[in-house]
């Protein structure tokens, strides 16, 4: 544990100069790059002008004005920063409030941890924004938030400004605890079937409607000037669901099987709310036309399969087939490591299903931006959008591409050269701290503290069947 904390301290120090130096709203000029705009083709020997954190100009004929900070990207590729539509990084403690079947009162926003080293690691993989989701232990889970990976900034500076908050729903094996051993002495939690999962959601929205009506009545009577009214009792579990009914909060649904996806469409239609994204949606290819007609986004894995029964029909052609049939598709990570290689995972849809290079790029840029309602701000290299960019040394759809720099709001948050240059000094600093601690412990002889190891797996595919029961 002590070693681990030390690590955070060191890395924070390392990141500080990057952030401070870039805090000046400098004008930045990236030149000589292959610019993958995603919306209007690739520009060879292209340049990007960044002013006040926004993209001010893009093209092949731009010239650097005097006094601007120039990033020479000769031979390099610039693409929009990767948007990970399903992530569990930067969460302090567990990702699941799993005790109740409806945990909508829990909010990821309250437990954002800006010191999670996985923010930095994913940033180094070209990720600039992530949809930070609650786990999948409940049919209706906790509230979610979209962040930018502003490493070095406090938790309050992480949220993606203007992004609509969300809520996690989950269908299938996880909310019904199929792959989860209930500890001795603990009662099994309802539901245990897909029938029950549907019922929990239906019940919750029945209550949410009733709750909304109570408040509407109250507000009407109050507006009419009625005196001495007692407001309804506030219910933090139902309020987020009212926001869903009012279209003020996005629903992100963890789902696998085709039938359960159609089930939720029916329930959503009945209660008058809209699902925003289908997450995982591994059998989405079976009902691609229904998904396209419904109009919500599908956010899936590249090639994960067979880790549980409902993932046995998963195919790596899923993203391509759904795209072919008109669904807005993204490829997500659900895992701090997978996020570092999302460019490679997107490229797999070219191999499996024959997507074009630009459509493959969209899976991790423009499409997740659309899915999160942020395509006016991110997801492509267009004038007026946030300067969230990833610079690679090769075509990012190649396995040989390595991120050189990651920019958010026009600031360089990750720089590979700088990271490497700082390593020797950091190692020295760490050694000095270890020596100091060793010396102190020799003097005091305190009891040994255990090291941090075997962190709980965060992903849906993490080792061991039981783990899959909960994310």
């Amino acid at each position, binding site marked *: 544990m002590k070693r*681990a904390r030390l690590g955070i301290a060191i890395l924070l120090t390392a990141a500080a100069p990057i952030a401070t130096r870039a805090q000046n709203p400098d004008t930045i000029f990236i030149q000589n790059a292959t610019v993958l705009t995603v919306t209007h083709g690739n520009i060879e020997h292209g340049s990007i002008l960044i002013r006040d954190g926004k993209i001010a100009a893009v093209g092949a004929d731009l010239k650097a004005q005097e006094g601007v900070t120039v990033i020479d990207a000769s031979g390099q590729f610039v693409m929009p920063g990767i948007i990970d539509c399903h992530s569990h990084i930067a969460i302090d403690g567990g990702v699941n409030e799993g005790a109740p079947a409806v945990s909508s009162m829990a909010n990821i926003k309250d437990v954002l941890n800006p010191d999670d*080293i996985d923010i930095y690691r994913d940033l*180094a993989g070209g990720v600039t924004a992530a949809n930070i989701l609650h786990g999948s232990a409940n049919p209706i889970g906790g509230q979610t938030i979209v962040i930018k990976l502003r490493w070095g900034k406090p938790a309050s500076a992480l949220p993606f400004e203007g992004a609509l908050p969300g809520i996690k729903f989950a269908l299938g094996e996880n909310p019904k605890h199929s792959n989860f051993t209930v500890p001795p002495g603990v009662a099994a939690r309802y539901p245990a079937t897909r029938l029950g999962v549907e019922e929990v959601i239906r019940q919750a929205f029945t209550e949410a409607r009733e709750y909304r009506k109570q408040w509407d009545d109250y507000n009407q009577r109050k507006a009419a000037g009625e005196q001495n009214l007692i407001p309804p009792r506030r219910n933090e579990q139902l309020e987020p669901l009212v926001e869903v009914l009012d279209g003020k909060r996005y629903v992100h649904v963890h789902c696998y099987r085709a039938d359960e996806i159609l089930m939720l469409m029916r329930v959503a239609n009945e209660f008058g709310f809209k699902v925003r994204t289908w997450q995982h949606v591994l059998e989405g290819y079976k009902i691609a036309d*229904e998904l396209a*007609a419904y109009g919500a986004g599908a956010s899936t894995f590249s090639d994960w399969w067979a880790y*549980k029964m409902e993932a046995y029909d998963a195919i790596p052609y899923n993203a391509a087939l759904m795209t072919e049939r008109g669904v807005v598709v993204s490829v997500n990570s659900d895992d701090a490591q997978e996020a570092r290689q999302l460019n490679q995972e997107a490229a797999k849809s070219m191999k499996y299903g024959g997507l074009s290079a630009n459509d493959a790029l969209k899976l991790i840029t423009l499409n997740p931006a659309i899915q999160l309602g942020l395509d006016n701000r991110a997801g492509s290299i267009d004038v007026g959008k946030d300067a969230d960019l990833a610079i690679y040394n090769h075509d990012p759809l190649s396995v040989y591409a390595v991120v050189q720099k990651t920019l958010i709001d026009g600031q360089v948050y990750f720089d590979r050269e700088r990271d490497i240059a700082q390593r020797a000094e950091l190692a020295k600093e760490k050694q000095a701290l270890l020596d100091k601690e060793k010396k102190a412990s020799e003097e005091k002889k305190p009891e040994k503290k255990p090291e941090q190891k075997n962190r709980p*797996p965060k992903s849906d595919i993490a080792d061991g069947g*039981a783990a*899959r029961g909960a994310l």
Partner: protein
Amino acid sequence: VKTRARSWGRTWFVAILVAIPTWAQSTATSTTYAIQGGKIFTLAGAPIEKGTVIIRDGKIAAVGANVAVPSDAQMIDATGLQVYPGLFDPVTQIGLSEVSAVSATQDISELGDYNPELVAATAVNPASAHIAVTRADGITEVIAAPGTAGFDSQAGGIIAGQASAFHLAGWTMEEMQIKRSVAMVVNWPSIQTRAFDFSTFRVKQKPYSDVKKEYDKNVNQLSDWLDRARHYAQAKEKGSPALFERDLKLEALVPVVEGKLPVLVVADEERDIRNAEEFCSKQNLKMILAGGAEAWKVKELLKDKKIPVILGPTERLPEEEDTPYDKPMTQPSELFAAGIPFAFSSFGTAFSRRLPQYAGSAVAYGLPHDEALKAVTLNAAQIFGLADQLGTIEPGKLGNIIVTNGDPLEIQTQVRYLFIKGQLTSMDNRHRELYEQYRKRPKEAEQVAH
């Protein structure tokens, strides 16, 4: 039958579906093939431009720029394509695991800490969907290792059983098997004070003194098993047959203590690797390190003791928070520079097809490309003593060959032809079938009512 290869090339996908409904065209009568016109990466010398590979009776009969083509050979036109040895994934659970979360489909981990008599090949399911899915991406042979369950996970006791090497094609294990026993899997007892407990979904902490006591007990037991195996071997050789009592567990350990069967020691942290090496040295065991996340911290030791490493996925998070963010990807190039032999592996089942991606990522971070290619083919064959049969395209070796439309380590590259045991093998699989099936679903779907 001489098939003109051009038409094959154009309609390869359909052709394979139709012409090779099963895993191979035939097994009764072995076909002779001539793969012609491609760039051949033999991995036993410089690549051959527009070369020819002749496969006969399941083996590579000839390879070169000017090779006589037998009149009965089926022609495979590889013009514009590239020819490589099939890829080899040396630590998997293929055949022992179908759906990870469904225990009925799991045959990886037996109860008990000492099971040297168990052999993976016993329970490899030749009908597993993973086999066809994996080979379609160019992996032609694997080793299934009992007691391993994904990288960083030791599932099946301390001596978990024997690992088996087999081809990813065949109706039965008799047809698939390369070598029934290639290594004894030992999950090195790691000193872990924090462990994640899946039953309660919580991290459990134990005091160091307790963990160390447990560790010492395990290592003493392991040592005791090996001593008993030595005594058993002596008794068998020199004792009275009338008084000799067979013990299947000890019998299985005899090749280990005699240094004939290597031990595949699963260990990741520096301390564990050092402890394991010290133990194996003392016990005169032939050690292969599996996992080796912190092998970069013990390069001198691994080099001095000539210990090869089967590396876990390069695409994983660093061990410690202050380990350089790219260490898992740069480690292979460091090991190569230090002269330590290593092979890449998936340590998985569903992710076995990511093997080339893991190697490609190491190239991105400094490993020479030709070394990465060897680390997914020849190196594993050498480490497990199978290089006389596998790993390169040389006469006399088994005909495990892939024909691709490009660099096999690159994500977008497609395998066009696949040969296993010298047979043209189908690349059809569960995933392609589902894709084709649902792609054909009529467009007039009845929509969910609003």
